[in-house]
């Protein structure tokens, strides 16, 4: 490909986010609490897989990248690799990530850089992902005592992963101007928009906005550098098993 190296590393970061979350959501197939949610989560996973295919194809062979890389070579955020947990954990992960992705893609779409065509396409889909997560957060948070408590535990548990997404991704806005010109990504502004949006949803859901750290020594987050959490290796082993055991298998 003719893309510059910095753009490739950015494509890898965004592509891995989409690929890994797509796989996690796919793990709900056959296990979701109701049929409609089974279908919804699979549809969201399919949207993400479509993004991943386009982004990884900017870097190299999509199958090679998905199935033959070692854990340390993946550049996804740690939040997307977290296990599904109960339905509340999956929804908290969806709320945190889809809000981030939607805000980021809206900026990339407006900026007119290398990622603008994909972002302009995907931002319309992430609007539905974010809406889905929001509606469920409201329903579970403002539901029964049991659903409220479980939703609160979930948003608390994943909070320490929510600082990482706002570390600038190298190459993402290379060659663009500043956000003030309607281009580029102002990461601090992105983060404050994210906080405002997520806090608003949590408050309307009668949930407490978690108080723990989002960055720093007690927070997690080095996925963009290839450092991942323990559950990721297990997920990857399952995801890559077939391709590694039967190279080139088709059906």
């Amino acid at each position, binding site marked *: 490909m003719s893309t510059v190296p910095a753009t490739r590393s950015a494509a890898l970061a965004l592509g891995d986010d989409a690929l890994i979350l797509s796989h996690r959501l796919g793990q709900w197939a056959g296990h979701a609490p109701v049929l409609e949610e089974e279908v919804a989560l699979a549809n969201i996973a*399919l*949207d993400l897989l479509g*993004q991943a*295919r386009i982004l990884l194809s900017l870097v190299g062979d999509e199958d090679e990248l998905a199935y033959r890389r070692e854990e340390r070579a993946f550049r996804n955020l740690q939040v997307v690799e977290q296990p599904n947990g109960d339905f509340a954990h999956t929804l908290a992960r969806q709320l945190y990530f889809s809000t981030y992705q939607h805000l980021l893609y809206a900026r990339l779409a407006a900026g007119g850089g290398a990622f603008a065509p994909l972002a302009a396409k995907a931002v319309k*889909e992430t609007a539905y992902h974010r809406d889905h997560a929001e509606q469920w957060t409201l329903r579970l948070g403002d539901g029964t005592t049991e659903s409220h408590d479980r939703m609160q535990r979930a948003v608390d548990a994943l909070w320490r992963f929510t600082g990482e997404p706002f570390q600038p991704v190298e190459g993402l806005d290379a060659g663009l101007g500043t956000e003030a010109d309607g281009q580029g990504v102002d990461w601090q502004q992105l983060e404050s928009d994210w906080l405002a949006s997520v806090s608003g949803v949590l408050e309307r859901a009668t949930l407490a906005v978690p108080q723990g750290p989002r960055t720093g020594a007690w927070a997690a987050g080095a996925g963009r550098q290839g450092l991942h959490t323990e559950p990721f290796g297990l997920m990857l082993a399952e995801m890559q098993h077939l391709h590694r055991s039967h190279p080139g298998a088709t059906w």
Partner: protein
Amino acid sequence: MVTGTPPTGTPLEEELRRLAGTVPDPELPVLTLGELGVLRAVHVSAPGRVEVELTPTYTGCPAVEAMAADIERVLHESAGMTEVTVRTVLAPAWSTDDISAEGRRKLTEFGIAPPRTTREIDAASAAREPIPLSLAIRCPHCGSIDTELLSRFSSTACKALRRCVSCREPFDHFKEL
């Protein structure tokens, strides 16, 4: 006729575009690719050699490969093209506004509530509704506007599942995108 894009090609390119536009959508065979509005351009680069630009409805749409294969087949068989290349393009992004009026009519007939146009949503939301996604959607079976959302995602990513409160029938709604 393909909506949205004025014809700009040679008569041969227009004819090839018309032919490619007659291919039925693999997942919604009631619609043609022309009515769906996913054909973006047709270029004849040399005698017998044609390049077609196709845009996906959704980024992850699994039907794109089947659409490309069907376009290749039709242009081989019906127009005698020896080399057909189908390229996928993302920009400008497809919108449900690209579905033609005839396409919308056929969707309703098929039992799928068609997407509302951006113009309709803008007009209605300017008038009163704070959330455009919840504007009234008409039941394709009985015509009632008293319908409710069951799930934001249905049999395919492009549809939502709804139920008519009047006739109690569930139905798919082609989501606005």
